[in-house]
């Protein structure tokens, strides 16, 4: 079953860059293969296992019109059968090794990952490659996958936070693929077909549209001698270049959804920024002060610590390939919904109207810079970190540059980005609550 091992020569190349870092961050080596695949390798031998993370640059952003859920279903369906193996054979073989393989999509990209003991690596890797490059999408299994997806979508209605998120994105984006949920809707998923999945896979799952990170107990010899020859057999594709137009709602509105719950789940936000926006770092500092600094942010301080209205309240910029939302989310008992919304709005206004203090700015910088190494706490976090660095074009020296990107932010920058990217007057508010108890009927 395994592909024959060729001892072949490896002129890997186009570019080999390697970087070992300053603060004990993990080293990484970057190689671009002839077929366009970017290979990122970070060796770490303290534990006898390997994590492989293939990022395919397709996600819900590439769902066709009326095909919401296409990227998500394609991801879960690659695991249903591949090359000569049935679903059952794949699962039996991987489970026997105690290996874990998974595939899922988000708005921007798809991740297929494998975690396996070093001793089983050469048994598991061919399965991984077949799943990615030669999935068979067996009709009966795809049909089952679709009905499971539909049930999962229905089940998620029991999560009021998720219901609020979906309503928020739908209202915020005036059309376009970021406005629909990655998993699709009951209506859209019911109409997805095996043929559409095959076609989507053929178009997007190509080496020149993908980034492979390999982290853990693997050495250069095994990469050059074993992995690369197999990776090179993956034929280059022709994924079409596609740009997405993002249009945000700028009309202030409140969407109320009635549910028999004890807490109102609230999302407030507006159109935000893309990951490549030069203001990204200033916005990170600003957002830390506003609502990302766990127990110590302004929102937490006011809404949780002072008023006791919520267990959790936070704000975030979902900076994606294309502009994502800025959003605040919280939960509070139904009858405090109005007070919590008002308090949130006041904090947003304050962020826009006055300079943050020197101390707030310094604390934010110290945390953001000092906490950076925590991003490397596990193999899978390292793998996904390097994949994202590559995907968003941040450069392999990103960890070295990061402190200066953050430390260069001034109080004036913070105020400027607050004014530029937080718009209470153009915001969408979603409240999922027992509306009667919340006084919002």
């Amino acid at each position, binding site marked *: 079953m395994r592909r024959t091992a060729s001892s072949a020569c490896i002129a890997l190349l186009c570019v080999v860059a390697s970087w070992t870092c300053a603060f*004990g961050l*993990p080293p990484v080596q970057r190689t671009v293969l002839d077929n366009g695949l970017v290979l990122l390798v970070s060796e*770490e031998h*303290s*534990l*006898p*296992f390997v994590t492989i993370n293939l990022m395919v640059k397709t996600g819900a952003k590439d769902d066709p019109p009326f095909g919401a859920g296409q990227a998500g279903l394609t991801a879960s369906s690659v695991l249903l059968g591949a090359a000569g193996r049935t679903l*059952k054979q794949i699962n*039996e073989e991987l*489970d*026997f*090794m*105690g290996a874990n393989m998974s595939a899922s999509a988000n708005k921007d990209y798809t991740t297929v990952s494998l975690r*396996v*003991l070093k001793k089983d690596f050469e048994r598991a890797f061919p399965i991984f490659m077949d799943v990615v490059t030669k999935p068979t999408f067996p009709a009966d299994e795809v049909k089952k996958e679709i*009905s499971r997806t539909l*049930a*999962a*979508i229905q*089940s*998620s209605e*029991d*999560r009021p*936070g*998720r*219901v609020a998120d*979906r309503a928020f994105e739908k209202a915020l984006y005036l059309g376009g693929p970021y406005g629909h*949920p*990655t998993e699709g*809707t009951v209506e859209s998923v019911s109409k997805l077909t095996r043929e559409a999945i095959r076609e989507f896979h053929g178009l997007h799952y190509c080496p020149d549209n993908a980034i492979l990170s390999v982290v853990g107990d693997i050495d250069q010899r095994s990469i050059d001698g074993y992995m690369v020859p197999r990776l090179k057999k993956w034929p280059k594709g022709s994924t079409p270049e596609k740009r997405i137009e993002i249009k945000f709602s700028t009309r202030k509105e409140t969407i109320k959804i*009635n*549910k*028999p719950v*004890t*807490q109102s789940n609230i999302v407030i936000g507006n159109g935000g920024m893309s990951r490549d926006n030069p203001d990204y770092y200033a916005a990170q500092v600003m957002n830390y002060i506003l609502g990302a600094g*766990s*127990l*110590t942010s302004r929102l937490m*301080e006011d809404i949780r*610590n002072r*008023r*006791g*209205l919520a*267990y*959790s*309240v*936070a704000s975030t910029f979902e900076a994606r390939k294309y502009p994502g939302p800025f959003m605040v*989310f919280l*939960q509070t*008992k139904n009858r405090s919904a109005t007070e919590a919304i008002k308090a949130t709005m006041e904090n947003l206004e304050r962020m826009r109207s006055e300079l943050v203090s020197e101390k707030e700015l310094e*604390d934010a910088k*110290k*945390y953001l810079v*000092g*906490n*950076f*190494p*925590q991003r490397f*706490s596990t*193999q899978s976090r390292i793998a996904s970190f390097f994949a994202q660095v590559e995907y968003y074009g941040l450069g392999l020296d990103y960890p070295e540059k990061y402190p200066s990107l953050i430390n260069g932010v001034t109080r004036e920058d913070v105020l400027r980005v607050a004014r530029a990217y937080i718009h209470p007057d153009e915001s969408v508010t979603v409240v999922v609550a027992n509306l009667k108890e919340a006084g919002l009927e």
Partner: protein
Amino acid sequence: MTNTSTAPTIKDTVSLMGVVVKRLLLLVCLGAAGVLFLISPAGAALADHVSEVTLANGLKVILLENHKAPLVTFQVWYRVGSRDEESGKTGLSHMLEHMMFKGTAKVGPEEFSRIIAQNGGDDNAFTSTDFTAYFENMSADRVKIPIGLESDRMRGLLLREEDFKTERSVVMEERRMRTEDSPKAVLSEQLAAIAFQIQPYHWPVIGWMQDIARYTVGDLKKHYKTYYVPANAFIVLAGDFKKEAVLPMIEEAFGSTPAGTAPVQWQDKEEPQLGERRIVVRKEAQLASIEKAYHVPNLKEPDSYVLEVIAALLSAGESSRLNQTLVRDKQLALSVSADNELVSRDPNLFSVSADVLPGKTADVVEKALLAEIKLLQEAPVGDRELEKAKNQLEAGFTFAQDSIFAQAMLIATYEIASSWRDADTYVPAIRAVSPADVKRVAQKYLVPENCVTARLDPIPSAEQKPVEPGSPGKENIVR
């Protein structure tokens, strides 16, 4: 994965985006072992890499050096959880955990977390049935900071009335979020409440809402004074440090704290059930759900490891029995799981559960679950299938050693339940399980008179609107 673990509940921060330390984390941790050296039957044992020092005041310090990255996790574990509470004051341990962030004479409210954050660290805490734990994940060069702060709040907590009043509201919001508005969480809470009539596992870690509303600062002060003493706590430090350098810092910070008296930890155990117990929860929900739990021994008895293997046979991986039969072949369930509470201070539960697909009934799913249990009792498991389950458990144990945080959690949860040295028992004990053991243990414990069944019957809600997968899962830790 299968699992282990006692039931915790979590404190803090944490957002929808899910930073909450959930059961999953704990499970994984417990399934994990040791360290950057594997615990294999033939290889190095945890005991060879962990060292233990006890200060003069009885405070145990457990140290695990791991130099792969310049990071440390510093953790203080108190041997107190909901099992130490009394009826009418349930959730008190968790409430106290929240109050531990409200300041001492030296450190103002929320100042603790602010100082940790200024130093680039992350801190949080969690409470379970069996323990209350506090942690700081820091750069290695900042290790002294959490040492100083933790020693300060071990003895100097202020517990101010006004802070308590506000924080009580926060905990009520937490309970609404975790439990009231999650049909599955309500189901699990109800199940525990009828499974345990004598043991304090009867009540939820976060406490009943009425109790949260009832207790006073006086109750908290008493709880703090009784349980937050060196004789009832231990420290775990894992990561990039040198023992010779760090021990004097710990000694200096904690050494002068009066030892206190270790409280009596004995709890009466359940009497055997006189017959199957069943409950129905009727609540607004999308899907029906069923959970069947059986009283089982914890890691102190060898059968508990056989139950680990049984849980793996049933639900570890896509090819496991419940996944293959209920999810794939018969298409009865959206998801299934089998859990074994191995690393638990008192005997706990083994459970199987399923979320029922639309158009199917809980009755049919229950019959299918029972058929799988019957199969375990009647037909010997094949060698290859048994080997597969063991491989999965062992690999899972290895994978879960990924972070120093998880390594520290593993050590600590074993230390709470019995001794951190028992983590070394895990892999050999799993490897020793035979097909005959599986059959015998299934016949002994997975029987109707030892079973508690809880069913969620959905009441359709007035407005239906569709839309992602994943269930809230059982919340065992509360932050």
